[in-house]
C-alpha cells in the first residue's frame, strides 16, 4: 500500500433516495486530523458516513480509505476503519468485556493484546466496575461508551463517529473527548458529526459544513471566519448563516 497523505478521500460521492441525499460530494480528510462534519438535520451527513463505513452502497463516486478503494476492496478498508453510530448497538446479553472480545475476534486482533487494550479502554471510560456485568441494564450513556470502546479496541486508523456524545453526561463526554484527542495525537484520523458546535469548535482541526448533500464550506475555524468575512463570530453564528444562505439559494 503506497503511503498517503489522506485518510479519507471522497470523489463525486452520490446517493439518492427519493431525492439526492448526497450530491457529487468531494471531501478529503488528512491523516492524523480531527474533522468535524456539520450540517442541519437531513443534510446528508449520516448517509455520507454510512457510505464510508460500508453500510450503504453509493450510486456513484469513489471512497478511498487510507489509500484503499473501499468500494472494490471493502474488507481491507473495513480492517482499518471503525464506526460508531448515535444509537449504540450492543448485545444486551454480553458483558462489555465479552463484547470487546467479540469485536477483537472479528478484527482478528491478537487476544492478549486485545484483552489488555479492552481493559484499559473500559477503565478510561469509567466502566471498570461494570466490565463483567451484562449490558442489559446499562443506561444509554454506558451503552454508548461500550460501543465506543468497541470501535477503539481494534486500533483503527480511521474512526467515524456519528453523534458520539448523544446521551453522555458531562464527565463521560469529557472522557470520550480525551480518548479521541489521544488517538488523534497518536496518528489516528477522526471524522465526526455533531450538533454540539462547541465540541467542533474546540476539538476539530478542520470543519466541513454540508447542506443538501453538498459541501458548502470547509476549513479551520479561522479559515471559515475569513471565508465569511467575520473575524470574531462564533461557529454557531457562522453555521446558521451558512445554512440559511443555502436554504435561501435552494
Amino acid at each position, binding site marked *: 500500500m503506497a503511503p498517503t497523505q489522506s485518510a479519507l478521500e471522497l470523489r463525486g460521492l452520490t446517493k439518492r433516495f427519493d431525492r439526492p441525499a448526497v450530491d457529487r460530494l468531494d471531501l478529503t480528510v488528512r491523516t492524523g486530523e480531527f474533522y468535524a462534519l456539520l450540517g442541519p438535520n437531513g443534510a446528508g451527513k449520516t448517509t455520507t458516513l454510512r457510505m464510508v463505513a460500508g453500510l450503504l452502497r453509493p450510486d456513484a463516486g469513489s471512497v478511498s480509505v487510507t489509500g484503499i478503494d473501499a468500494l472494490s476492496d471493502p474488507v481491507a478498508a473495513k*480492517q482499518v476503519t471503525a464506526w460508531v453510530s448515535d444509537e449504540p*448497538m450492543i448485545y444486551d446479553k*454480553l*458483558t462489555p468485556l465479552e463484547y470487546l472480545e467479540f469485536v477483537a475476534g472479528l478484527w482478528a486482533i491478537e487476544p492478549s493484546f486485545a484483552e489488555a487494550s479492552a481493559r484499559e479502554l473500559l477503565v478510561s471510560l469509567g466502566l471498570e466496575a461494570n466490565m463483567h456485568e451484562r449490558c*442489559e441494564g446499562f443506561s444509554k450513556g454506558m451503552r454508548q461508551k461500550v460501543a465506543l470502546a468497541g470501535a477503539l479496541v481494534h486500533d483503527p486508523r480511521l474512526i467515524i463517529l456519528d453523534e458520539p456524545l448523544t446521551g453522555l453526561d458531562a464527565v463521560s463526554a469529557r472522557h470520550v473527548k480525551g480518548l479521541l484527542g489521544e488517538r488523534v495525537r497518536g496518528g489516528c484520523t477522526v471524522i465526526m458529526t455533531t450538533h454540539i458546535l462547541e465540541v467542533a469548535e474546540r476539538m476539530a482541526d478542520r470543519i466541513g459544513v454540508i447542506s443538501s448533500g453538498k459541501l458548502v464550506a470547509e476549513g479551520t475555524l479561522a479559515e471559515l471566519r475569513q471565508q465569511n468575512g467575520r473575524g470574531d463570530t462564533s461557529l454557531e453564528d457562522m453555521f446558521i448563516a451558512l445554512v440559511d444562505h443555502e436554504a435561501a439559494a435552494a
Partner: protein
Amino acid sequence: MTTAALSWFARHEIRLAWREWLAMMTGGRRGRRRAMIVGLLVFGVLLHIPAYAVIGRYATLHAPLDKQTLIVVTATILLAWALMLSQAIESVTRVFYARADLDLIMSSPVALTRVFSIRLASIALSVTAMAMLLATPFVDVLMFGGGLRWLAVYGVVIAIGLSAAAIAIAVTILLFRTIGPQRTRLVAQIVAAVIGAGFVIALQIAAILSYGTLSRFAVLTSDATAAFAPGPDSMLWWPARAAFGDGEALSLLLATGLLLLGVVMASLSAGFADTAARASAGTASARRASRARSFRTGSRQQALRRKELVLLGRDPWLLSQSLMQLLYLVPPAVLLWRSFSDSSIGIVLITPVIVMAAGQLAGGLGWLTISGEDAPDLVRTSPLPPSSLIRAKIEVVLLVIGALFAPLVLALMFASPEQAAVTAAGVAVAAASATAIQLWFRVQARRSQFRRRQTSSRLATFAEAFSSIGWAATSALALSIPHAALVSGLMTAAILAATWKLSPQRD
C-alpha cells in the same frame, strides 16, 4: 378516582389490548388490516372443518353422561384451561415488562389499587375474549347438530377464562415476590410453555406406558381411569355438566371463576403497584454478572459463532421454546424406550415427530441468528465478507440442531439403523429448509422482537410450517411407503422452490 374516570381508564386498557393484538396480527402495518380481516374470516370458516371432525359426533349427546364421556369432556376443558392459563401468564408478564406507561400511571394522582384492579380485569377480559373467539367454530358445529343449548359452552369458556386469569395473576405476582423481577421473566416464560404443552404430553406418556400408543384418548377412555374417577355428583364434573347445559353447574362454575378473580384482585391489586414498580426498576438496575476469563484465540468466523452460541445460551425465549420442543420429544422417547422390549410398530411415529421438532426449532434459531442481530452496524462494518457472516450464522443453527438431535438419532440407531439414518436425513433437510427460508426472508430486527417474527412475513411463516410438516411426512413415508415418500419429498421441495421464487429480491 371517580366512576367516570375509572370507566375511561377501562376503555383505555381495552383500546391498548386491542391495538397490541392488531399490531401483532398486522406487523404494525396499516395496509394489512383488510388482508388480516379477510385472512381471519377465512381461517375462522376453515376452522369449522377440524371442529366438525373433532366434536361433531358429540353434538347430539344429552345429559346424563356416562363416566367415560364425562372424563373426555372434562379433560378437554382442562386442556383448554391449561392453554388459557399459559396465555394469561404471558399477558401478565407482558404488562409488567413491556408496557411503557407504568411510570406515567404511578406518578399520576390516581388510586393505584383501583387502576391496577382495572388492569387485572382487562387481562382477564382479553384472555376470555380470545378463548371465546377460538371456541366459536366448535360451538357453531355443536349448535348446528344439537341446537341452541350448546350456547352454554360460552359460559364455560368465560368461567375458565376468569379462573385462568386469576391463577395467572397470582402465580406471576408470587414469582415476583419469591424470585425477583429478573428471574420471573424467564421462569414465567418457561412455566407458560410447560403448562401449555405439559397436559397433552403427560397424557401421551401415560398412554404409551399403558397402551403403547401416542393417543391420549387411550388413557381417558380406559376402564382403569373410569374406575379411578369420582362419582357423578363430584365437583370435578361441573365444567362438563355446564357445557352440556346444566344451569346449576354453569352458575356455580361462573360464580367460582368470578369469586377467584375477585379474591385475587382484592388481595393482590394493592401489591401489584409495588410489583410493577420493582419490575420496571429491576430491568434497569439488576445487572447480571458473567464469569471473567481470558480472551480466546480463533478465526473471525469462530468469534462470530462463539458470540451467537453465547447469545443463544442466554436467550430466555430460546430456553423456554427448547424446553417445550424437548418436552414434545419425551413421548416419542418413551415410546422408543418401550419398543426395545416389545418391538412395537409405533416406533415409526418417532421419526416424523423428531423431524418436525427439528424444523420448527431451526426456524426459530434461524430467525434469532440471521435476522435478530442487535448490533447490525458492527457486524456489517467488520472486515468479513457478507457471505462469511451468513455462513457462520447458518453453521451455528445447524450445530445447535445437531447437538440437540444427535442423541435421539443415536438412541434410535440401537433400535433400527435404517430408521436412524432416515431420521438423521430428515432432521438435516428440515433444519436446512427452515434455515434457508429464514435466510430468504431475513429482515433486520432486534432479538427481543422474536415474538412478532411471524408478522414480518406470513409467507415465510406458512412456508416454514409446511416445510417442516412436509419433511416429517416424507420421513415417515420413507419408512413405510417409499414410493409415496418420493412424491411427498418432491411436493415439499416444490413448496420450497416456490417460496424461494416469491422471496424478496436481495443485493
